[in-house]
């Protein structure tokens, strides 16, 4: 149906809500759960419930329960996840063979299948948490941006509407002038969730005051940070909230057209967004004369083609225009001259999903979460060596400790925490001493990291810090677009120096050169990519200098990762002088004579392992080099 005005929508929403309240089975259709077999679980539920209906046991089920395939529920680690509503029971690692039991117990009798709920050992005793709201992973979370993610079928408009969807847009179009909208967003203290943290209201205001025949809203869904998947989850799990946010932004600045730029690696996000746009157009939430007003707004999805630099706003604009995604100097800022030379506001996915609910519940409500300088919540993708990997949303100002050890459940296999990389290849590595730091934009930049889009990769004692720094530098060097010299050449040199470090070929003066180059790249690059690329190097050099020195001075890798820090020796007891090792050695560093044990020349050895493979008598000993004083 097509909605012609606000009253009609409000009436429809009330009808939808009245229909709610009956039994529901929510099955997580996020990437993690799908890969773990959520689809088969869904199919089994469908079959079992169909059969129950035929067997006329429906009275016991009251009404046939409603099956919903939702977006990401967050606890990817323990998928496939299944939720029973309205009780809010959460089942983990559900297999098709568990479905009968869940239907019998939970749907018919309202009981809990204990073996499938969240459990944890506390002081040697196993505790069970059957309800989602009590599970330690969820307890401290506040879901604002992810309010619908994991609770609705993202491909069903009615499910979004039943949670007051498009009501904010309807109210804005009826009651508020564009200036009032901007005022409300400014008052809410919402800042850009893509990493920069620029106040959203101010950005809109800049674009609002520029006179132009056309203006644009761009939603930046080019989530290129390795280790981040928040925006993906929202695009897949709650696409309408992005569309509504964009429409409100469009109304506020006077734009008629919007673009969503999505990574091509996210095919499901593209599919869900396109379906949502189609449905929203049919229902009159997008297109001409939205909800009977004189505001018209269209949204077009553009797929990226794989370039990290396109997350930078001027490069993203070039990419939408069909060009190479190279950044341009700012000013002029896109708010003055952006897409096709017209005023353009670029907001991140998460920023835009916050907009409808702020308009609905007010700036003061939003401000009641978070810290004075950073209002609201932030989503994080927990990954790396952490127990509960997944998607979380917490109020700004929680500590890293709460996030990693409270919600995240601590380090896998009870290893020791070493560092956490926040903000991906543009962010910094923080250490144990930062664990009690309340996370907001300002505290993180004070510590040398950035909020970034919210990727949070936990590193344990088995991770080699210089190797991680080399990994990030390899990434940014690869993704440097080549336009400006400091980034193009600087990242290359930094990578070269880091490679020397992990190969055990660097000297202490190389470390100084590395630091100096990093500072130059940071200070003189054209865009955000180059300006932030040195962050991982600079923070690790600062917080983990000893580990660099181990590699450089002692030629030792304490985490046992860097292959060059291994030593290959021949056990003279076992060696039968067959010469097989000497024949396969590519650098001819093994020598010997018949009947005398062979010897490896440590200076020449490249640690390729060929001799190890070749020896028929297991006489090659591989050992990690230790510091001399040990």
């Amino acid at each position, binding site marked *: 149906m097509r909605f012609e005005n606000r009253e009609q929508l409000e009436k429809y929403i009330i009808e939808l809500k009245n229909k709610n309240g009956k039994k529901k089975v929510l099955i997580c259709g996020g*990437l*993690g759960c*799908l*890969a*773990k*077999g959520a689809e088969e679980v869904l199919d089994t539920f469908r079959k079992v419930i169909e059969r129950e209906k035929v067997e006329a046991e429906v009275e016991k089920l009251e009404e046939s329960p409603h099956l919903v395939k939702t977006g990401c529920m967050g606890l*990817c*680690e323990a998928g496939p996840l299944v939720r029973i509503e309205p009780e809010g029971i959460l089942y983990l690692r559900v297999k098709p063979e568990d479905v009968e039991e869940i239907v019998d117990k939970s749907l018919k009798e309202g009981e809990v299948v204990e073996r499938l709920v969240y459990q944890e050992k506390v002081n040697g005793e196993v505790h069970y948490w059957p309800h989602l709201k009590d599970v330690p992973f969820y307890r401290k979370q506040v879901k604002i941006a992810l309010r619908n993610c994991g609770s609705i079928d993202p491909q069903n408009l009615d499910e979004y509407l039943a949670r007051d969807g498009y009501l904010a847009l309807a109210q804005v179009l009826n009651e508020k002038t564009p200036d009032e909208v901007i005022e409300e967003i400014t008052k809410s203290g919402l800042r850009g969730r893509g990493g920069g943290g620029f106040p959203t209201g101010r950005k809109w205001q800049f674009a609002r005051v520029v006179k132009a025949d056309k203006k644009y809203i761009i939603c930046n869904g080019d*989530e*290129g*940070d*390795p*280790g*981040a*998947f928040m925006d*993906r989850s929202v695009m897949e799990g709650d696409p309408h909230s992005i569309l509504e946010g964009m429409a409100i932004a469009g109304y506020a600045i006077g734009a008629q057209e919007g673009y969503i730029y999505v990574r*091509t*690696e*996210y*095919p499901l996000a593209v599919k869900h967004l396109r379906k949502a746009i189609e449905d929203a157009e049919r229902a009159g939430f997008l297109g001409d004369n939205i909800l009977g007003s004189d505001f018209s707004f269209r949204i077009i999805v*553009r*797929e*990226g*083609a*794989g*370039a*990290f630099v396109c997350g930078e706003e001027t490069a993203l604009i070039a*990419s*939408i*225009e*069909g*060009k*190479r*995604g*190279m950044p341009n100097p700012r000013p002029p800022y896109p708010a003055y001259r952006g897409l096709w030379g017209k005023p353009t506001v670029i907001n991140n996915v998460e920023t835009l999903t916050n907009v409808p609910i702020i308009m609905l519940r007010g700036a003061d409500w939003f401000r009641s979460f978070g810290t004075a300088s950073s209002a609201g919540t932030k989503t994080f*993708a*927990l*990954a*790396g*060596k952490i127990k509960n*990997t*997944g*998607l979380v949303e917490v109020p700004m100002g929680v500590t890293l400790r709460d996030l990693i050890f409270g919600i995240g459940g601590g380090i896998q296999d009870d290893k020791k925490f070493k560092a956490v*990389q926040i903000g*991906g*290849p543009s962010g910094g590595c923080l250490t144990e001493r930062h664990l009690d730091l309340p996370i907001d934009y300002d505290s993180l930049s004070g510590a040398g990291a950035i909020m970034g889009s919210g*990727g949070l*990769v936990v*590193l344990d004692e088995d*991770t080699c810090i210089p190797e*991680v720094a080399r*990994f*990030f530098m390899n*990434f940014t060097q690869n*993704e440097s*677009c080549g336009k400006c010299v400091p980034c193009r050449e600087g990242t290359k040199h930094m990578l070269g120096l880091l490679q020397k470090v992990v190969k055990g070929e660097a000297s202490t003066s190389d470390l100084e050169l590395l630091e100096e180059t990093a500072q130059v790249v940071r200070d003189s690059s054209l865009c955000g990519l180059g300006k932030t690329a040195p962050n991982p190097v600079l923070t690790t050099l600062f917080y983990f200098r000893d580990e660099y020195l181990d590699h450089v001075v002692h030629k030792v890798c304490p985490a046992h990762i860097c292959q060059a820090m291994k030593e290959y020796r021949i056990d003279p007891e076992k060696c039968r002088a067959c010469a097989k090792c000497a024949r396969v050695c590519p650098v001819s560093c093994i020598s010997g004579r018949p009947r005398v044990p062979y010897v490896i020349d440590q200076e020449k050895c490249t640690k390729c392992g060929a001799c190890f493979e070749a020896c028929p008598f297991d006489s090659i000993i591989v050992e990690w080099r230790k510091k001399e004083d040990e």
Partner: protein
Amino acid sequence: MEIEKESLVLSRQFEKVNAILRKYSHNVDNLIAILQEIQSEYRYLPEEILTYVATALQVSPAHVYGVATFYAQFSLEPKGEHIIRVCDGTACHVKGSAQILKAVRENLGLREGENTTSDLMFTVETVACIGACALAPALMVDEEVYGQMDEEKVQQLVDHLLGEGEKVDAV
């Protein structure tokens, strides 16, 4: 190989390209989308088609070539029918994606410097992040994600892809 490449192009006679160009109203603003569709048709961007597209859009071949070489998604070499993308994002990296890549390449019999099998069935790539960090280390076969990989699972997966083994659970 050269002959195969040529006959592939000739047999289709630019018909598909024309249809794609029409769909995007010959507008150079849509160049990336145009190249994406051409690539999904041909599995790579043949040079003569790039020149053809440039002429049709009334821009220089350098412009089209520049875009085609800028983005990681585009390939100027023929790609295999199936693309195996091994994720080397941060989470996968710290969980040992290097071994996964090595195992995939070894099981497919790829030599150093080779990314596509000689029968043009498989291309192996690394990708910065597929957003499946919670399942690290992960890889994608076409659009299917496989998580929590190890060397043994890689072998099973490749066997299955080669039509020799059982289907592999995604996790």
